[in-house]
């Protein structure tokens, strides 16, 4: 699972800490649960499209939908460059989509 694209999202506020990511393959339940090494992961399997969110000790918040290629990441105001770099490094070390998440 690799990052294909990312960009800042605008919202009602300054928007500087909200990012959108697109990956080369969709999130799967297994792939979502692997995120538990980063922090507290919650997975809502009973929703019409299963929803997950991740909160980390460093103040990062991730939301996404199982089956989607994307997720929304809110970075902490302080030190967000390091947090972002670490988040993206998770995916640079993951196996390509056709090997892990099929």
């Amino acid at each position: 699972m690799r990052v294909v694209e990312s960009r800042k999202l605008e919202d009602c506020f300054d928007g500087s800490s909200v990012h959108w990511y697109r990956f080369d393959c969709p999130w799967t339940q297994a792939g979502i649960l692997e995120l538990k090494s980063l922090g507290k992961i919650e997975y809502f399997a009973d929703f019409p499209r299963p929803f997950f969110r991740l909160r980390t000790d460093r103040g990062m918040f991730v939301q996404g939908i199982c089956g989607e290629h994307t997720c929304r990441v809110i970075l902490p105001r302080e030190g967000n460059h390091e947090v972002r770099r670490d988040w993206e490094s998770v995916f640079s070390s993951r196996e390509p989509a056709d090997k892990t998440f099929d």
Partner: protein
Amino acid sequence: MPALSMVYLNNAALGWPTAPGVAEAVQAWLTDPPEERGRTAAAHEDVAGEARRRLSKMLGASDPERIIFTLNATQSLNIAILGLNLPPGSLAITTVTEHNSVLRPLERLRAERGIRVKIVGFDSTGALDEDEFRKGLSDGPRLVVLNHASNVTGRVNDVGPLFLAAKAAGASTLLDASQTAGLIPVDAAGLHADLVAFPGHKGLHGPTGTGCLYVAPGIELDQFIVGGTGTRSDLARHPEEMPLRLEAGTANGAGLAGLAAALGWCEHHGGEAREEVARLGDRLRSGLRQIPRVRVFGLAGSQGGATGVVSFGIEGLDAGQAGYILRESFGIVCRTGLHCAPLIHRAIGSSPSGTIRFSASAFNTSQEIDEAIAAVEQVSRCVS
């Protein structure tokens, strides 16, 4: 991934779908031969003229030429507020419920021209604080700007008596009808509004890129744009007569064709549509109020159902997060945050993250409203 049907509840931002006939009218404008509809007097006699006549009827105005076309309500409000040429030191009165399309032009006048701006809050019943408002009138304001309905709570303001008092105090009156045009009768004279601004793409269900400003007889606005008009080309200066005084350049013909079609639909179906929106808004409001951990931000005595707008929050859940879940997991398209009306949130208790806003239209169904309520119930029960 399971297919998800969409429930569109973001009509306070963008009315969807457009009214029947709008898409066809836009397409016809774009595809029919253009030779009969150049930027000439003839153009004013087709879609622009038709839209002006229909808008004039909708506003109870006697002269269609007092209506100008803009891109949206924001542009209309800017033309009105900045175009009144308020002298330095003069007073403008508005309210905490206003959109940034009103607040920011006023702030610009404050910063650049030293205009004083008084912002009126609520009283204990949730209505505009009339005592504070009337106290402000005693200071001789030159301009009073009120919205007809809040884009956050949906509350409809009883602007007629307030504008009447404002005019008696010597003020020009500007009505922001962005949330009511097409949904609630907007009788400019009956409401004592000198200026009325609204978009074509919300309650009127016309195309984006269409907005309107009604300028009552006797009100003169500075020209903000001059240039080609297709008529009176021999004059060195831009014509003074309305609507050309405030319009220049090639019009948004495709948009106006769609707007004219939308207004035609409203003329025939507007009454039923208004009733349906009020009914769906009430259904939304009462359904959401039944859900534990959900707080509906309706002010006491609010008649908000009439516009179909309902703002709420889920205890323990940020509005932006809730909106993401509702949209991405349940297919409920809504809006979250401050809704470009930053001052109201402190007053209603929705600071700092704002509200989740559902806004229904006559094109929604009871089943969709019930699906949205059920989604909120499930989110509020499972996520915190």
